[in-house]
């Protein structure tokens, strides 16, 4: 039986070392070359001279183990992130059909993240404010146009790929901060209580309590169009969560980089699609699984 194999990753943050390990692991476990889907935050610090070099290197490495790379920029990427590579396709506000004999899959995407999900915009050049009606409307229109184009091709499955989760699904966390790429930042933050006001902007303090960080626009779209699969990242602490609502299966695939949280990082999703069904499993980029527990903790935590 023919099947389409996908490896889905998110929130790489220019971590080339983990990409090397991912390539090494998946090359051993996959029978044929899979299609890679990256749901955003490929690099970090877009203004640094390393940004372009790092993202290019990530794609070069991934292209060796895959037949295609479908990606979109996250909030930490350039909105205009374009990878000139024949096997790479940017899904941001675009659509695409992949086909392998029996099974045909339509994909559409939306990059960036809602402004309310971030505590600071300093390291996030690609944000959109969906509380502005015209912004939300435009995003929704793009998604609608793309899904209708896909529908014409009559695919077996439709996959929605976004960086942000939909509102209310695997999206509960404190607003994200990339300033403090601290190994244990989540726990530290919880114990700090109220965060001190930012010295630069004392007038308006961004909220720091736990809340839904997902996008209402994306949620509205999913509720109406009900794609078969929705892949997203962005909310690190909810990474690895899966949920099924009606006809849609949701996967928060955050995060591949060991930062910001070592404990929940190194994650990727394997997704297999046949004409009959969809199977999925999460795994971690861990090369030394057979070492004892003590050594494992020392090495990875």
């Amino acid at each position, binding site marked *: 039986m023919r099947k389409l194999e996908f490896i889905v990753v998110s929130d790489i943050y220019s971590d080339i070392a983990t990409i090397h390990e991912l390539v090494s692991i998946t090359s051993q476990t996959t029978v044929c070359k899979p299609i890679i889907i990256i749901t955003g935050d490929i690099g970090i610090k877009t203004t640094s001279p390393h940004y372009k070099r790092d993202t290019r290197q990530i794609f070069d490495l991934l292209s060796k183990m895959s037949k295609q790379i479908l990606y979109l920029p996250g909030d930490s990427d350039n909105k205009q992130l374009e990878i000139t590579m024949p096997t790479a396709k940017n899904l941001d506000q675009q659509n695409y059909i992949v086909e392998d004999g029996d099974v045909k899959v339509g994909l559409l995407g939306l990059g960036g993240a809602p402004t309310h999900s971030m505590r600071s915009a300093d390291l996030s050049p690609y944000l959109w404010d969906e509380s502005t009606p015209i912004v939300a409307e435009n995003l929704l229109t793009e998604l609608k146009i793309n899904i209708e184009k896909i529908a014409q091709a009559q695919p077996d499955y439709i996959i929605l790929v976004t960086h942000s989760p939909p509102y209310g699904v695997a999206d509960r966390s404190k607003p994200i901060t990339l300033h403090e790429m601290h190994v244990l930042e989540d*726990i530290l933050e919880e*114990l*700090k209580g109220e965060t001190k006001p930012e010295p630069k902007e004392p007038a308006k303090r961004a909220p720091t309590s736990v809340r839904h960080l997902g996008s209402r626009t994306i949620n509205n779209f999913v509720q109406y169009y009900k794609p078969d699969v929705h892949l997203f990242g962005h909310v690190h602490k909810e990474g*690895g969560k899966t949920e099924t609502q009606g006809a849609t299966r949701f996967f928060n695939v955050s995060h591949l980089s060991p930062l910001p949280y070592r*404990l929940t990082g190194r994650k990727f999703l394997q997704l297999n699609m046949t004409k009959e069904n969809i199977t999925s499993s999460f795994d971690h980029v861990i090369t030394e699984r057979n070492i004892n527990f003590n050594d494992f*903790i020392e090495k990875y*935590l």
Partner: protein
Amino acid sequence: MDVCGLREGFSLREYQKPIVGETLKEFEEESKQNVFISLPQGTGKTVIALAALSKLVNDSKVTKVLVLIPRRVLVNQWVDKAQEMFYGLGLIKNPPLSKESIEKIRGWLKHSGAIGIAMTMQSFKSIIKKEYFTEKDFDMVIVDEAADLVVSRDFIEGFRMSKYLKGLEKWRIPKLFILPYHVREKKIIALIKKFGNNSALIRKMITETQLMCTVRDPITIEDPLINIFIEKLEDDYKKTKTNVHRILTKHGIEGYRENIETLLNPETLDRLKKAYGLDEETCQQIQVLITKYILVQHIQKWFLYSGRSELSRSILSAQKDVNKWLSYEDKKLNKLVEEVKTRLAQGQKIYIFSQYVATAELLTNRLTEKLALKPRDITIITGADEADAQFEKLSSFKKVGRILVTTPVFDKGTDIPQADVIIVYTPPFSTEKLLQVVGRIRGGEVVFLAYKGYEEETTNQIADILRKTFASAQG
């Protein structure tokens, strides 16, 4: 004729009468301004306060009382209890406090026959700030669960007054404070100090056998793998703690040993910087160590208390032994199902305690599924419920429920119906808190579940402390 008193069919317990007398004596004969009553859980502290209030109202010494309680749900319980047991003790509960409504409330107080207002401590903070009410509006204040008046021990400032009750110490009208017996003596002394010399403390350990719990030996679960994980994590935990202690000793810092987590508070660190000249690097070092210490604790708890979904999402699930452990059914959870099943068959009413909301939800779902329970059989009440919902659920459990699963939302002051057994699935962080929890069932058995090995040892220690406490109470 008395304007208020106990309703027909209700009476004070024998040990309650002298305490009411003593309280009144302190106010009336000794002219004390503040009386603190410290009694064990389940001894009816609220009833004692109501009986004392009733007498003062009848003697025309009190016409308007302000009752302050930590949470909204407890305010409802308090007022309902007053009305259920006493006639003439009507209280306005949680009135809407706004500039517009305040005159209306004054009107109600004057004409409705209510003898006062019951509100949360948070509301008190707000009315004081906005000056809606002053001490002139009342002639007595009752503070239930008054241990919250001082929140924590701060090495530099000593015990701090709760921000919710700041200003109350300046009120000169009589104040009655009710607090559990197991609050540490140091804390009670600090509390009394805040209110000045004209204070009295009535602190008694009631020895009624019906309040004593039987602490069973922990039910053990065989699982050799768990000990491998816990021993390593415990080792890391101890090492990290020692390292923090070393830094504190090096800089001559005496406090914070018991609760090193408080050092993560930026305000505390700022104070230390000023008082001990700590540099930025040392502060960061302390923070990194403590965050590691907390992380290790978190992971330990996931292993011990069925946090499998969190572990499955973490990198630990890739380690061969953890992976194997996750592949088989949760043995502790299965043991709980077995225990509950046996006790339900004996017609027992069961109270299950978990420190965490997620665990409480997990236990409820598993028990419902495995024992085919109907929704009315099992009630879960956690901090995730709105205050009113907590109260409604508790009332429904009182009537028809068989199992009550809760988190520390009910550790203070809540009038939980008597149960035959309390199964402690995840113990609270301190013995004081555990005593508050087990005290709520007023008698019955206390049962712990523990993995054989390390957890069994620590659980045995906790069980021994409980046994000794109950034994000392019985003399």
